[in-house]
């Protein structure tokens, strides 16, 4: 799970009503039968901050816990700038892996 506020696209100031409204908008935009993974993330984010108590618990104890090392590695791989390896490097890499 990523930051629930980011997933739902609401600010930390948002109250129960605003958060629920945004959740329903997103649920309509990404229904579970068409976007199961996206909907699951939206649902999890909503559960994490839907009430004042949940938001306070998240802020006090859980904020940042979603940043597991595995998720950081995945994102690092996706976001890594794509270097353009030349012909020599490509061939050298193929060679060294075969030895």
């Amino acid at each position, binding site marked *: 799970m990523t930051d629930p506020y980011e997933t739902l696209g609401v600010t*930390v*100031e948002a*109250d129960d009503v605003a958060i629920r409204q945004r959740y329903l908008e997103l649920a309509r935009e990404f229904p579970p039968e068409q976007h199961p993974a996206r909907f699951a993330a939206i649902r999890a984010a909503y559960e994490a901050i839907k009430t*004042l*108590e949940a*938001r*306070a*618990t998240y*802020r*006090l104890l859980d*904020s*940042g*816990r979603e*940043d*597991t*090392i*595995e998720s*950081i*590695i995945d*994102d*690092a*791989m996706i*976001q*890594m*700038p*794509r*270097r*353009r*390896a*030349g*012909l*020599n*490097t*490509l*061939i050298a*890499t*193929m*060679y*060294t*892996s*075969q*030895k």
Partner: protein
Amino acid sequence: MARKKAPPAPPRPSADRVQALFAAGDVHGAYLAARLLNADQPTADHLKLLKTLAIGAATMLESTGKQFEFNRLMAEADQIDPQDPAWIVERACLLARGGRLADALMRVDESNRSRILGYGVDRALKSRSKEFLPDELHDGFDAIVAAFKHYESGDDAAAKATLEPIGLRSPFLEWKVLLRGLIAFANGEDARAAENFARLDRGRVPYRLCSPYYATADAGYRASVPPPIAAELEERFHRLNSGGIVPGLREVAKHLGRNREMPPVFRAVEGMLHALRNRPGLLKRLGRCLYHAIIYQGQPEDLVRYRQQFGAHPDDPSFFRLQARIAEELGEEGLAIRNWLRYEEWLATKPAGWPESILNRVRAMIWLRIGSDLDDENRPGPSCLDCLRRAVQLAPDWEPASRELYVELVDRKLHEEAEAVVRALLVHQPDRPEPLQRLAAMVARQNRPDEALELYLRARTLDPLNESIGTRAACTVLAVARTVIAGKKPAAAQTLFDEHAELLKQFTPNDSTVMRAVLAKKLGDQPQLETLLNELHAKPFRRLSLHFSLAVESTLVKIKPADRKDAEQSLAAALEETPHPIEVLLLLLAYDMYDEYGITYRGQKSQIKKFLALCSRVHEAKAPEEDYEVLGDTLRFRDELKLTKKYALEYLRRFPRNPKFGLLLAEALFDLMEPPHRIRGILVVARDHAERSKEKRHSALIPRIDELLQQLPDPFESLRSFFRGGFPR
């Protein structure tokens, strides 16, 4: 002189041996074994196997640059089935891949020429030398080299323009497709890149060069290759795309987990800190990840290193919260409280980025955290009560804080403040049944049944399926009826019974019949009284509890002493008869109900002694074993420890194989702090009996027996600690 031993005979060649060598990765050895096999047993299958392995061995020698061995193997290959046309083409392909393009071209006709040229081009580009190629291909070679340089410098337009002249029939077409795929990949167009890579011939060099990118761009392709190959492709991709971050992060991952230490994590971070500084987003996320890791695997001294690498945490700039949580994990409550108090102090300064509602709730949560479940003794800072009061002050609408404070105040008999706390919560949350129930219980104990009934009925409207609320509401109706009858308003009592008939019938049928009987007695309505008493007497095991309730209620509703004498005499007579264990159990429950609702009457305390004394006579009833077990449980739940011990011992003698009495005895001895070795012995026997018993209720006792056994100190611990010190010399 010893005779020289003959060398062992070489293993007879077989297809299995060839397979085994190939599976072990020894392609050249497999080829040699296949050659022996074919010479020994020349069959069509063995010839096919030999050709396949010759191709494999030649490809391996070529790709590892062993030109001499390659040429020797190709000379041998020429001797294998030299007239087979398909084999001639295969050998030509191999020669072209090995750099002998002219030789290869001489062996094939026009139809195979472009294929051979393709391999020749691969070899030339792989060796970065166009000398391998005929003159007419030099321009194509130069175009590919130039296109790669443009691509590398980021000039995609120039790269594409350079590739433009390479047509569909060109031997450089595969390289053109490779470059188009690489350009798309570099621009993040993964789908387009995968589309180009998918078109490449899997036997050609461009396909092998693209595969790390292909596996990154296309999850389907990545899943289609065997896991070790996928891992190698991923590793190759990281080498090609190196920035040091992903391997560094993997190193961090290796050292994360409970019971591990943080220093290797910080060392791994140190190695990639420079690269991470260029990726502030990742640095921030890694900081948050390690912040949580420190809670579970860190020590207070790790904070210095954390601060050096990641700086201050925006929500915890002085790391008080982190230190509090580490201390909690280490079980150091005093240190945890000190740090939570410092953190709360910081929050009280209203730091930026905290909405007020969340800030107040978080502060209340901290006060509740440090105020709950802790004794006041030997703890720093304010008392538990003050912490809870502060929590309620900061979040007056927060039920958990209000509930904790209420419980604490009731424990300390501060009833007035406790009531005020619940009433304050109800201002914010008038529709929550829990605080209504809490307030009702409190006012009921203060002998204000009318108020209590109103509150219970409100709670029941909000939660009609809650049986606890239903039972308490029904009991409160009876309490109100009691005051009304005592106040000589029988009509009002009847109205009350009628109004709440459903509730009374569902939750307190027997007690309400008793109350109606008392009302009939008070009114002198003898026929009604007899009807109700007959109804009550018809119920099994109610004999003692019925006489008891009638006697108590007669007192409570202030029936004249002369008129209630018969009820008291009936109770005394009933107590003289042989008691059944279930009758005694129901009598104790009826007695406890008055106690729970705070109802007192004269002689109440001495009465319980008489009732408990009945337990020593229940054996006369010769009831089923199970009924004695239930009464034993009741004694235990009432915390009658000495009586439970006596009762359990007696019935253990009567039913020596019954594990329930063993468990009851052990529980009583445990609470009486008797020597653990004695309790352990009883439990071990009880467990054995529970295992052997055919009764389900007995085998269900095993988890509880095990739980108790675990709570007992290890009997050999003292011996172990003695020997751990070693023997004196």
